[in-house]
């Protein structure tokens, strides 16, 4: 099974993510809480992160939370990205406010 390392440089947490698994799902299944968990479906914006380096594929995400500009900046929803290389991510403390 291919797995990629995800490093959250905001919190210092590191966890592995299997191929085809979303970053949020990998985080939850390893028992970490470093990204807020909402709907897990790309709809609520709760799990917003910024990818600093690495590459990934995206599932469908709400345009309200992930407009094209955000996508270009690597600002994506952790429940809807699937790493294809090791990732370094940041999660902003105001991430939860994305839903307000």
């Amino acid at each position, binding site marked *: 099974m291919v797995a990629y390392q995800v490093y959250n440089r905001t919190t210092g947490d590191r966890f592995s993510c299997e191929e085809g698994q979303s970053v949020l799902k990998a985080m939850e299944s390893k028992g970490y809480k470093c990204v807020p968990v909402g709907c897990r479906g790309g*709809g609520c914006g*709760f799990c917003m992160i910024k990818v600093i380096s690495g590459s990934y594929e995206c599932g469908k995400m709400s345009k309200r939370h992930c407009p094209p500009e955000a996508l270009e900046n690597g600002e994506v929803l952790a429940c809807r990205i699937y790493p294809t290389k090791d990732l370094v991510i940041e999660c902003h403390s105001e991430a939860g406010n994305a839903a307000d």
Partner: protein
Amino acid sequence: MRKGVMRPGHVQVRVLDIDEAVQHYTELLGMIETDRDDQGRVYLKAWTEVDKFSLVLREADEPGCDFMGFKVLDEAALNQLEKDLVAHGLEVEQLPEGELKDCGRRIRFTVASGHAFELYADKTYTGKWGVSDVNPEAWPRGLKGMKAVRFDHCLFYGPNLAAVYDVFVNVLGFHLAEQVIDPEGTRIAQFLTASMKEHDIAFIHSDKPGQFHHASFFLETWEDVLRAADLISMTDTSIDIGPTRHGLTHGKTIYFFDPSGNRNEVFCGGDYTYPDHKPITWKAEDLGKAIFYHDRVLNERFLTVLT
């Protein structure tokens, strides 16, 4: 005082992927697909419902709720309610017969919380699914998943609850079954009904308008709610909270999410109300118990995760 609004009739929900959504609402909730239209919308119903559909799914690039519709007694009631809404100062939009397939003309208006509602008098009567109108069997074979009984209510988050109360109670003839009051005496949640059910629609205060908290579907028993929880695990569906009990309405419930992040509820039980019942009041200080009767604490997600 009743003004001819009978019941929740339909809700149109936006989804990111129509195929995944149809799979969720049919295979997991056990609703029945009844039609599709040339806009690509999919129409579904729960098995005990007598009209052709109660849930309309529309693919869009952000999830949420387009509108919720209530069925009224007849065309005369619809005409009167339309006049009353206009007299109340609301803008009323006309949707012609057939705009939703097999549904009569609808009127649509947006209340001060930023949510759109509709009234209509006619929809094609298809009868309960899988059982006859004469000597009906107890239930139909071939139901899937949670075997949802009916679309029951929605909960919306938004501002200006007092103005919304005014429309629902004074114009549409709902009554207030339950409320949450903060220490200053402001109503921060209102559970409104046009029937004997403890809520046909509910609102919770939030500064941001137009937010969708959940669409809820009725199940018969607590055993059914536990079975729903089993199915949520079996299908690795995103769970929110439960099985548990609400303080508000005392319904027994579980919350989960559809594949686009819209929250669903299935529940059983719940109190009853008549128009002479005084509203039940919950104190905002005890909101944890009001919402989750067992945990007695709110989870952050319930208050902030919305579409």
